[in-house]
Every structure is written in C-alpha cells, then in structure tokens.
C-alpha cells in the first residue's frame, strides 16, 4: 500500500527535477549564445553607431553609445574629402571584373576535371598547393614585373592577379557542382548535334547557375577583402577600400573616428550580404574542400 502511494510521488519528483534541469540547460544555452552574439557582433554595432555620431559625441563623458541625433555627416565627408566615392567604385569594379574573369576561365577547367578526370589526382593536389601558397611569395616578383610592364596603378594589373590567384579555389568548388550534374542531359544535347562547348554553355550553365553564383559571391568577397596586392600594386587613382581604410591609422590611437568608422561600415557591407546569402555554403567555401567528405 505504502509503495503504491510512494511510487507516483517519486516519479513526479524525478520528472520535475528532469524538467528543471532541462529548463536550466536551455536557459544556459541561450545565455551562452547571447554572450557569443554580443562579443562577435558588438564591434559592428559600435562601429555603425560611431559612424553616425556627431563630432562632439566623441568627447562626451559618460560616453554616448547611441547618438541622439544620428547624422550622415561622416559619410558625406568620406565621400567628398577623402575621395571615398572613388575608392568604393574602384573596389566594386575590380572585384566585379575579377569575379567574372575567374568564373569564365575556371568553368571549362572544372568541366575538364569533372568529366574527363583531366590531370588525375595530381592536378587537384597542384591546385590545393597553389591555394596554400602565401601571397607574400608572389608580391615581390609581380611588383618588379609590373614596374617593368607599367602595370602598377592599373585596374588590369590588379584584376589579372586576383583572377589567377582565385582560379584554384573556383575550380575546386565548381568541380563539386559539376559532379552532381547528370551527364545524360549533355549527352542528349550532343547527340542532337551540339558541340561540347555549346552543350556546356547552353545546357550545363543554366542548370548549375546557382552553384556558379555561390562561387561568384565568394570570389567577389575574396577580392574585395584582399589587401597585400592592393597596398603594393595600387596608386593614388586605383586604391581600393582596404587601402583607403589604412590611411586613417596615421593619426595614432586617437585618429579621426568619424570617417574611419564610416569607411569600415562600407568595407564590411559585402561580408554581411554574403554571409546571409551563402549560409549553406559557408563551411565549404571558407575551408576550400578542407572539410569535404
């Protein structure tokens, strides 16, 4: 009798404790993630609010965290006084051209590897080694060669380097997308009298377009972010946003915050856009097959 009364009580107590533990674990999980979000996004929040502050807000104490009257004055200053418009355009043009060129050159190569196993495993290893190659090893000879050819301070010079440096990465990703594509569809097209190239352009490309968009976005962000080649090879007319932003460091630790923060906001915009568009591919793209399989 006693047992019969005791049992449900114990069960109920256990269930309650279990639920409490689970509830606590849940709260801790969300607290941990909230802390991570504050740490990883806090700097962005601060940079955005700083770029909207008025000059007097910088000197205020207690500090102004969110400006009472947000103003775009620093953006206007950046675009007029610091030639920000020009350098932002440079970045856009150089990244877009490199992205398109890398894609056009890489697609047939990726196709040759995916369909004919061109180069065997050796080519894949070669491409991986190229991607691991430090840029510092290329910048010295390329700088001297460009000086001789008159290619420094030109769009063409920078676009050429970015395109080629990006080929290994683009080929690697595209091979993956092409392997998933059924051979039968292009074979059907070729039986109907299509040449390989036409089958590739008219049949394969439209279908793997989403994959190509992924590669294109990664190429865009990679060239947008590149700094070493940009700082050495560009001149006053061809500077990119990455080079512009470093010019604000000359004022020491208390440099002019307004335009500097505005330029950082513009410089990280593509990263925000791409992080959301490419969620599913972030790991693959960032690791370049390092995590595949």
């Amino acid at each position, binding site marked *: 009798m006693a047992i019969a009364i005791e049992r449900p009580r114990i069960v109920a107590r256990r269930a309650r404790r279990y639920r409490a533990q689970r509830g606590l674990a849940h709260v801790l999980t969300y607290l941990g993630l909230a802390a991570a979000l504050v740490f990883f996004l806090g700097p962005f929040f601060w940079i955005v609010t700083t770029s909207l502050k008025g000059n007097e807000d910088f000197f205020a104490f207690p500090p102004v965290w969110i400006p009472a009257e947000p103003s775009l004055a620093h953006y206007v200053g950046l675009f007029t006084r610091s030639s920000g418009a020009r350098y932002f355009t440079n970045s856009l043009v150089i990244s877009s051209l490199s992205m398109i060129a890398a894609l056009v050159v890489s697609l047939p190569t990726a196709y040759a590897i995916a369909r004919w196993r061109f180069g065997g495993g050796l080519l894949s290893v070669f491409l991986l080694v190229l991607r*691991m190659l430090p840029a510092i090893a290329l910048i010295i000879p390329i700088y001297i060669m460009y000086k001789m050819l008159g290619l420094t301070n030109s769009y063409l010079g920078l676009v050429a380097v970015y395109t080629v440096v990006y080929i290994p990465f683009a080929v690697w990703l595209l091979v993956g997308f092409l392997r998933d594509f059924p051979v039968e569809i292009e074979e059907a097209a070729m039986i109907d009298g299509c040449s390989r190239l036409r089958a590739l352009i008219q049949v394969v490309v439209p279908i793997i377009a989403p994959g190509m968009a992924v590669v294109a976005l990664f190429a865009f962000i990679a060239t947008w972010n590149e700094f070493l080649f940009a700082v050495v090879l560009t001149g006053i007319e061809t500077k990119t946003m990455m080079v512009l932003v470093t010019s604000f460091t000359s004022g020491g630790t208390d440099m002019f915050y307004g335009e500097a923060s505005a330029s950082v906001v513009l410089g990280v915009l593509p990263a925000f856009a791409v992080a959301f568009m490419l969620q599913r591919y972030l790991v693959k793209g960032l690791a370049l097959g390092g995590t595949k399989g």
Partner: protein
Amino acid sequence: MRGWPIAVKRKQWEPLAFAAPSLALIALVILFPLAYSFYLSLQNFDLSVGSEYEFIGGKNYVEALFKDQRFLGSVWNTAVIIAPSLAVELLLGLGIALLLSRAVRGRPIITALLAIPAMVSPVMAAMAWRMMFGVKFGAINNLGRQLGLLDVYFDWFATPWLSIVSVVLVEVWHNTPFMMLVLLAGIQSIPQELYDAARADGATPWQRFWSITLPLLKFTMVVGVMIRLIDLTKLFGLIFVLTYGGPGSSTETVAFDTYLVGFKDFRMSYAAALSYVIVGGVLVLTLVFLWIQRIREARAA
C-alpha cells in the same frame, strides 16, 4: 570505347583545350613569377642601391636562416601569436558549436550572424578593433571607465606583451567563427542513434560528450586547426593596421617582416629569399595537412 575510334580521337584534345586558359594564366601569373623570384633570391638586387645586381649564390638564405635576428625574431613572434590563437579559437569554437548543436530555435540565423566576422577582411576587423582599443575615444576604455573598472586611459598596445595579447584577441574574434562553422558541421554529421543508444544505457551528458562527440570530432578538429595554422602563417593585414609590427618589432610576423624588407628597405633579392623560406615552411605544413586528409579518407573507406 574501342567501338568509336572517331569519337575517341576527337575527344583527346578537348580536355586540354578546356583546361588550357586557366593553366596558361597560372603559368604566366604564378609559376613564372615564382621562378623569377627564385632567380632574384640568388642575386643581390637592392632597389635602394640601384638597378644593377649580380649573382651571389645562397648568401641571402644563409643570412635569413642564421644571421638575421629580426627575421628569426619574427618567426618567434608568429609562433607566439599562433599558439594561443589556435588554442582559444578551438575551445571557443567548440563551445559555441556545441551550444548551437542543441535544439536551438533560430539556429540558421544565429549561425549566419556569428559567421560574419570570418567573412570580413582582416584589415577591416583590425581597423574596427583598433578604434575599439582607442585610448580616449575607444569603446573599451569608455566602457571600463563608465563601469568604474578603469580609472586611467589605458593604452592597450603599450608593451610588447600587451600588444601580443591584443593581437590574439582580435585574431580570436576574427576567426573563431570559422572554427565554429567547421566543428558545427562535424557535430551535425555524427549519427543521432549513437546518442540515443548511449542515453538508453544511462550515460550522462558529460559521458556522451567524452565518449561520442569528442572522439568522432577529432579529425574535424585537426583539419580545422591545420587550415587555421596554414592561414595564420600569412598573418599580415591584421598586423599592418593594428600594430604595424610595434612596439619595436615585437609583433612583426614573417609576412610583415618580408613586406618591410621588400617595400620599405627595397632589398628585393633578400625579400625574395625570405619569401622562399616562408614558402618552405608552408609547404611542409601543407604536406602534413594532405597526409592527415589521406589518413582520414583511408579510415572513412
């Protein structure tokens, strides 16, 4: 295949033709410059002296590996920055990945938000943090003073030791998200049945972590760390903006030192030799990485 001789013949030149444009460009913009750079590294080409140079053999390499205290110091600095960065990125990344792998509402959006720092250029990350560290107007000093934790305007780059801590902090902020993404993918590929079975046998969450998650995540962790390690040997933009190698030369990394030799001192030949020493190091790391990959594939098969 033997049935269609014409088709085979026609196909033979096609793969090469398809691959030719990119291979030609790689030869022109990567392989030829690399060869030219090796040639340069055996000369004494110094733009600050003049445009004439002569063959000096391996002298540059001897200087780099045995005499150049600044370069050898930069190797040490690079290691001192890499070791704590990798350790913290791995632990923090694992922690956040484990939190995300629990049944969390809004996981895709939280993951995408947390991934953003890894998509940002090192230069932009360093610039944002340099401003955060700012002595008078920086967020960190302002917050510290407002909360009463700091009573002076603190210079976060005052000493070599402090500078390295600050650089590591920014590097951790920048690349922990990468580690988190890699590890999260690894955790999610572990079959759920293993956990269900362990739970049925009465294993505590702690036991499940130590005997299921960690062993099955080992290779993913090694691969993630190797990728970060190879990338960290190229650390340049972050240093350029955050410390410019200072104070003194305490945060000069190998890539940054080579940049200074080449484009501040204009000792082109010597910079080429330094870059080849770096390539040698990276090549060794890459081969280790490929070897690990091969082991993993062999185990998976």
